[in-house]
């Protein structure tokens, strides 16, 4: 699946034309505006505290996968971007900005693994986001990801899904279900429901079966749930990754308000990592919410609660050997690793851990918006995650045939890795397996 594998080709219309429009004066002005108005002690202290020891290096899968090339170490990326920017007080060239954009957008997944390797806990993802913010304000952004941000701005969803398309998709899933489960409903705009279920734009666009599967799960568990028909149904957020913080705020406001309008008790969201980061970590903060104003339950926590309460019955467990990928945004971002293992053990009889795992799991190399930067950067992304392929291979040698990746970006990234390294492993969402093995009502 996906685009054909290209040779390393970093020509990108967004970066190239963006760079062509820059002047040294504009660069200096924008950089200093961002530094003056939007950064403060955090940036200064991080830069002053780094003793250039290089201990963060092994935290990064780019570094580990590219034969320990120091340009890919976390501090190495900081050196090539923000150190230089601060040293020169913003007097950098358009070419420098283009390279900085390429590093910040396509050579860092913002996965925060390195924060666990730096003895000082310096948050390199934060520093890369500052670089992205500058690049956003300068208009030097990879074309593909900027297109998704445009879609967000115009439609309030990531995939240019029109309102009627969205509703049609849900009806279509209901119809599909009728053959299997009579009276299965995907309740739209049900005021006062307990749960609002939200998904990312790509679900109705490419992976509508996931909505179907979750509808079956909700139905079997007898839950009071709904989905919004109006904008706000999409919880995804590429603006967070392009550096468009204002748009990120707009998106999250729309999402939270959809839940408020429906007067639900909580939002349950699908198996997506970045969307969780957006509602739980970054988007809410942009809006001034310390924690999300509505209780946010990620799919991994949701499934855990269902199984803990015995609401889903498993007559016979999934018997193929499975391994589990830990997505950064819900593991390092929310500590759901034990809950996901609880569910996997409930539904699978042969669970094989890959190592390192939990908080230390290697990133899929697709997150942080990197996969959304599109085909020009695909090769780099796949090559730069060789360690992931090795990790999967080791699990396969222990008997894992299936990789569970409970995150859309991880899914896309791992799909490419499995394909490129010819790992011949099957890839599934957790709900794929739950749906397959659960006891379904007639």
């Amino acid at each position, binding site marked *: 699946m996906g685009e054909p594998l290209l040779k390393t080709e970093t020509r990108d219309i967004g970066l190239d034309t963006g760079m062509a429009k820059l002047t040294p004066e504009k660069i200096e002005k924008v950089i200093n505006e961002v530094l003056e108005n939007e950064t*403060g002690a955090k940036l200064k202290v991080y830069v002053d*505290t780094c003793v*250039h020891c*290089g201990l963060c290096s092994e935290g990064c899968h780019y570094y580990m996968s590219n034969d320990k090339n120091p340009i890919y*170490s976390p501090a190495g990326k900081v050196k090539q971007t923000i150190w230089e920017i601060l040293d020169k007080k913003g007097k950098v060239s358009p070419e420098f900005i283009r390279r900085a954009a390429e590093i910040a957008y396509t050579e860092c997944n913002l996965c925060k693994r390195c924060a666990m390797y730096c*003895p000082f*806990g310096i948050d390199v993802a934060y520093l890369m986001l500052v670089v992205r913010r500058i690049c956003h304000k300068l208009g030097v952004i990879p074309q593909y990801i900027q297109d998704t941000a445009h879609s967000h701005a115009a439609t309030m969803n990531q995939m240019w899904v029109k309102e009627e398309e969205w509703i049609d998709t849900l009806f279509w899933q209901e119809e599909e279900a009728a053959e299997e489960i009579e009276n299965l409903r995907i309740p739209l705009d049900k005021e006062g429901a307990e749960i609002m279920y939200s998904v990312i734009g790509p679900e109705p666009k490419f992976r509508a079966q996931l909505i179907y599967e979750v509808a079956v799960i909700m139905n079997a568990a007898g839950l009071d749930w709904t989905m919004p028909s109006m904008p706000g149904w999409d919880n995804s957020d590429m603006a967070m990754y392009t550096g468009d913080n204002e748009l990120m705020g707009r998106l999250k406001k729309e999402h939270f308000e959809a839940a408020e309008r429906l007067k639900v008790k909580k939002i349950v969201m699908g198996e997506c990592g970045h969307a969780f980061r957006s509602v739980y970590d970054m988007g809410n903060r942009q809006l001034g919410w310390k924690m999300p104003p509505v209780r946010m339950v990620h799919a991994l926590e949701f499934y855990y609660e269902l199984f803990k309460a015995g609401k889903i019955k498993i007559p016979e467990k999934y018997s193929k050997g499975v391994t589990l990928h830990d997505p950064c945004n819900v593991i390092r971002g929310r*500590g759901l690793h034990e809950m996901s293992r609880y569910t996997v053990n409930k539904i699978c009889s042969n669970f094989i851990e890959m190592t390192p795992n939990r908080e230390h799991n290697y990133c899929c190399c697709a997150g942080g918006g990197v996969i959304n930067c599109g085909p020009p950067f695909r090769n780099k992304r796949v090559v730069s995650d060789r360690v992931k392929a090795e990790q999967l291979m080791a699990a396969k040698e222990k008997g894992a045939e299936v990789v569970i990746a409970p995150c859309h970006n991880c899914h896309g990234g791992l799909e490419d890795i499995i394909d490129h390294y010819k790992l011949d492993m099957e890839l599934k969402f957790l709900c794929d397996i739950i749906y397959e093995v659960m006891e379904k009502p007639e």
Partner: protein
Amino acid sequence: MHTLYNFVSGPLAWLAFIIFFGGSIYKIVSMMKLAKKKDTAVYEYWDGYYALRSILRWITPFATVNWRKNPVMTVVTFAFHICLVIAPIFLCAHVLLVKEAFDISWWYLPDGVTDIMALIVIFSCGYFLYRRKTKAEVKFLTSSSDYWLLLMVVAPFATGFWAYHQLFGYNLMFILHMLSGEIMLAAIPFTRLSHMLYAIFTRGYIGSEFGAVRHARDW
């Protein structure tokens, strides 16, 4: 030589301590104020329990994955930092100096022990230099300032060792010892040696975020 000695051990020493303490307080207070204005999240998410959890974890040798991955660096950096702080404070000669000047005194270490500690600092700096020169990922991050910092740190210990053992020209070394010590102290708040002041905040903050918000470990 005598006047120089008096100057370095008198006014200059005062100045160094004033810059060190004053500068450190100024740096911490100004950063806290700036954070209050620009990074309010730092205050909002700071969590004493999780900050401490993270700090304690990281100041324990081999208690984190990365310390275990780099055993040599771990041993050297812990030995280095412990000796760097402990040796000067509990050196017999320093304690006596303070007693003479202010009539305050505290417990001190035997000379043989501080002597070894000074050597540990010197050899550790040698190791750091070797790392900078040979390890690609460290070399890439290195600029001239990193060498100056290393020199600044090793100088008081090397000269102190020299003077204590009364090697050739130790009178001059004695003056250089005081001078280099003063330079290092005064430099702490204004160079990357300020990680001494900031480490507790950076580690504490990421510890708070990971512990209280993300419910995950940061080691």
